[in-house]
């Protein structure tokens, strides 16, 4: 509607912007992403006037064209042209906060300044002359305490008034030569623009800001005379134009504040400084960091309460999986539907397809909420920035952020919250890289695969599991180094010049809201992918053509007229298994498709239909790989269980172990079968083929739930496919190299395969060691 007002909330990170936004809008918020990027966008209706929309811009320090957040913010301000800007300013850090203010006031949009944390300023004994500040900046200044909720209404009211009436014209001046150049630029290049926009574009042209220049579409002759004006000023002031502007803003602010900010504080260490002295102390920092990380992990992902651990997250997740998802949703719905005499296929669709998928989604929620709760606390209290400070040195080599440590750590438990935890990384490139590589770490659900391979072919040797972790970490490191040199990543600069905000007690409201927002966005966005995928896999594995009749294979197999002895013999022959091992699943679409598809895995050593089916069902949940082997190798007791678990239920460490124990108890038989089969189809190289199979399954696309999380975090179809495509290709290449090179030593070498493997290895090394220079420009539109 035309007369609905729109207010943009702008300010530095850590200035209390989120708190203010929550206080301004209450519960009426819409959380999403800015189009095409991973930056979060929040909008809400003002509590005091529901017709006013508030848009929370990303936290920024400047309106430069170099960081994604800044580009998103300035594009919004220039193109959407909000009616007013409410600029929140941290009173304890006026100089740097007002630096952004001087840029905002140039936009010609009515601006109101809300000075936050005045209580802290007073506590130090300092004072700020707000009246004088308002006069000097040319816009209304109000005092607020976002945390306590003081002055919020007044700030909102002031912003509405400004939106209705006012115009803000920049009051600050630059030095003589710059002002002269700006006036000249306005005259020759910007005469057609509305008065209030001239200053902004003049400054941007002066700074040679390419994004602004593009926007203006100037003729070559005008560009040349603008350049002349810039060079004249640069020569006179002996610096480059961009630096001149930045410098003069700070000089102007420092001068202005001399009369406004009265410092009385004795310069004694604040509480925050004292905390930081201990927490990032040279010797204590790492132990403290380890303890905090252990707590985060143990509380969210570790052993559950009542089982020797302290994890309330795992406890609730187990309950959600076993009781809520398994017993109530899946089995309960099946019982009810069957009692209503609903057609079996519909029962299957609803119970094993839809409800199983919903159950799988809900199963993650408790662990996720506990994890997000702790991440929100770490973020809100200021420790998260210190994590980046402590870990930066290690992670930056692989194109990751110090904050990538948390996603990777959490990823050892489960990749889904791991991927979601990447939200705390502020740089988009680091964030995307983390999302892409986190699932390389063997998660709890991959443990049964490792256990199966180790048990069946390596005599239970522990080095298999150790090597799996090693491969996971190596995959992250290698991928990080390779990817940061690719076109997809190389464009974006990642300067690590980061504020270390003062520590403060986290706000309960912020933490709870942040926790819920992330949890909900997982349910909503990742959930749809998971449910859809569960239905598809359910369909593929339970439908098929049996002896010319299409239907649910389980039902068709009960019909002895369809499944004749002759037919069973046929199936056994086709699948290469004994007759008494023929299972309904052998006739499913999945099994039928698997046979031709398994050719793809021939160069990896496991081109047989059973491992292929297992790999595909692994997409539902990685421990399904083991469950599927159980079914396919006719392991009756295990098969029964696997059906139950086809609910898409994901097992974590403990459950994974439980599965393994069962397999160990009755396991000799299946291990023998698996070993015999792998030896059989690989021409006697069972160990190598199994190891290659394990590597592929550890590194390839994660389960659908994790894919959903990746999609949520990437917020882009292109990037999601790129991530999945990369993971699968990388897994394929590594398994290929292992299988082909391995046979060089094990015998049965294939010359063409070996040459290809060496070429691929060479390509990886070349990508790893080729020189690389960090780019300087941001490639976002």
């Amino acid at each position, binding site marked *: 509607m035309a007369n609905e007002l729109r207010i943009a909330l702008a300010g530095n990170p850590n200035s209390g912007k989120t708190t203010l936004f929550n206080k301004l809008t209450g519960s009426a918020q819409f959380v999403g992403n800015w189009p095409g990027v991973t930056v979060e966008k929040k909008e809400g209706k003002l509590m005091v006037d529901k017709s006013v929309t508030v848009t929370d811009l990303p936290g920024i*320090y*400047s309106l*430069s064209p*170099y*960081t994604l957040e800044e580009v998103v913010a300035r594009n919004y301000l220039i193109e959407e042209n909000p009616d007013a800007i409410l600029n929140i300013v941290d009173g*304890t*850090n006026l*100089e*740097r906060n007002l*630096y952004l203010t001087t840029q905002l006031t140039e936009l010609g949009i009515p601006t109101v300044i809300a000075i936050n944390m005045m209580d802290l300023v007073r506590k130090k004994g300092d004072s700020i002359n707000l009246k004088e500040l308002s006069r000097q900046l040319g816009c209304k200044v109000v005092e607020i305490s976002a945390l306590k909720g003081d002055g919020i209404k007044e700030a909102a009211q002031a912003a509405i008034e400004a939106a209705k009436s006012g115009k803000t014209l920049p009051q600050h001046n630059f030095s003589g030569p710059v002002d002269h150049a700006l006036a000249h630029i306005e005259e020759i290049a910007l005469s057609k623009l509305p008065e209030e926009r001239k200053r902004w574009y003049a400054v941007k042209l002066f700074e040679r800001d390419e994004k602004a220049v593009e926007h203006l579409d100037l003729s070559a002759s005008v560009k040349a005379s603008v350049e002349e004006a810039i060079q004249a000023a640069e020569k006179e002031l002996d*610096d*480059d134009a*961009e*630096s001149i502007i*930045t*410098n003069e803003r*700070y*000089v102007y602010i420092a001068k202005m504040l001399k009369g406004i900010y009265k410092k009385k504080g004795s310069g004694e260490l604040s509480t925050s400084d004292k905390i*930081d002295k201990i927490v*990032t*102390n*040279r*010797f204590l*920092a*790492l132990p403290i960091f380890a303890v905090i990380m252990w707590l985060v992990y143990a509380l969210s992902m570790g052993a559950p309460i009542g089982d020797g651990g302290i994890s309330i997250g795992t406890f609730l997740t187990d309950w959600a999986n076993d009781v809520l998802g398994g017993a109530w949703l899946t089995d309960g719905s099946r019982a009810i539907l069957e009692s209503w005499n609903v057609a079996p296929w519909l029962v299957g669709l609803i119970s094993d397809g839809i409800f199983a998928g919903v159950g799988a989604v809900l199963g993650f929620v408790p662990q996720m909420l506990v994890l997000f709760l702790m991440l929100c606390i770490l973020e809100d209290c200021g420790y998260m*920035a210190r994590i*980046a*400070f*402590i*870990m*930066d*040195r*290690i992670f*930056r080599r692989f194109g990751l952020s110090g904050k990538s440590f948390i996603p990777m750590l959490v990823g050892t438990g489960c990749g889904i919250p791991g991927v979601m935890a990447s939200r705390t990384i502020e740089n988009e490139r680091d964030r995307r890289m983390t999302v892409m590589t986190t699932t390389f770490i063997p998660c709890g659900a991959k443990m049964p695969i490792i256990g199966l391979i180790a048990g069946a072919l390596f005599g239970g040797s522990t080095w298999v599991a150790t090597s799996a972790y090693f491969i996971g970490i190596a995959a992250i490191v290698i991928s990080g180094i390779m990817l940061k040199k690719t076109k997809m990543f190389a464009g974006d*600069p990642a*300067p*690590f*010049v*980061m*504020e*270390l*905000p*003062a520590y403060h007690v986290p706000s309960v409201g912020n933490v709870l809201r942040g926790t819920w927002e992330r949890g909900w966005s997982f349910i909503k966005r990742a959930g749809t992918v998971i449910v859809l995928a569960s239905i598809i896999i359910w369909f593929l594995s339970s439908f098929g053509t049996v002896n010319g009749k299409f239907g649910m294979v389980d039902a068709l197999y009960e019909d002895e007229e369809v499944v004749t002895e002759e037919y069973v013999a046929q199936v056994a022959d086709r699948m290469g298994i004994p007759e008494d091992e023929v299972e309904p699943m052998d006739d499913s679409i999945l099994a039928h498709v698997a046979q031709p598809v398994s050719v793809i895995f021939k160069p990896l050593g496991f081109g047989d239909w059973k491992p292929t089916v297992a790999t595909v069902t692994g997409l539902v949940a990685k421990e399904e790989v083991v469950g599927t082997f159980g079914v396919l190798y006719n392991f009756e007791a295990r098969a029964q269980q696997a059906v139950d678990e086809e609910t898409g239920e994901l097992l974590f460490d403990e459950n994974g172990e439980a599965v393994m124990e069962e397999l160990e108890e009755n396991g000799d038989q299946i291990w023998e079968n698996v070993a015999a089969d792998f030896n059989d189809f690989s021409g006697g190289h069972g160990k190598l083929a199994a190891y290659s199979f394990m590597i592929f399954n550890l590194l390839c696309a994660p389960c659908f739930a994790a894919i959903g999380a990746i999609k949520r975090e990437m917020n882009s179809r292109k990037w999601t496919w790129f991530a999945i495509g990369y993971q699968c290709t990388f897994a394929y290449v590594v398994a290929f190299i292992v299988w082909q090179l391995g046979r060089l030593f094990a015998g049965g070498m294939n010359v063409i395969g070996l040459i290809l493997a060496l070429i691929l290895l060479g390509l990886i090394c070349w990508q790893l060691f080729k020189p690389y220079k960090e780019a*300087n*420009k*941001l490639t976002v539109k």
Partner: protein
Amino acid sequence: MKTLRDVKVGETAKVVKLHGEGAVKRRIMDMGITKGVEVYVRKLAPLGDPIEVNVRNYELSLRKADAEMIEVQ
């Protein structure tokens, strides 16, 4: 040329000039490290890099490689 990298922990230095160009330089300046400002080097990260400095009354961390671009006296 003395740079911020050479300043010892616990010492204060005055910025003379910023070298380099583009995104990193602009970012450093946006964060308040400009000509003439005093920078106090507070500490080194436990693994030896990055460093933490106090500038314009707040704490900032930057990598040694970037600190090398900042000429001080």
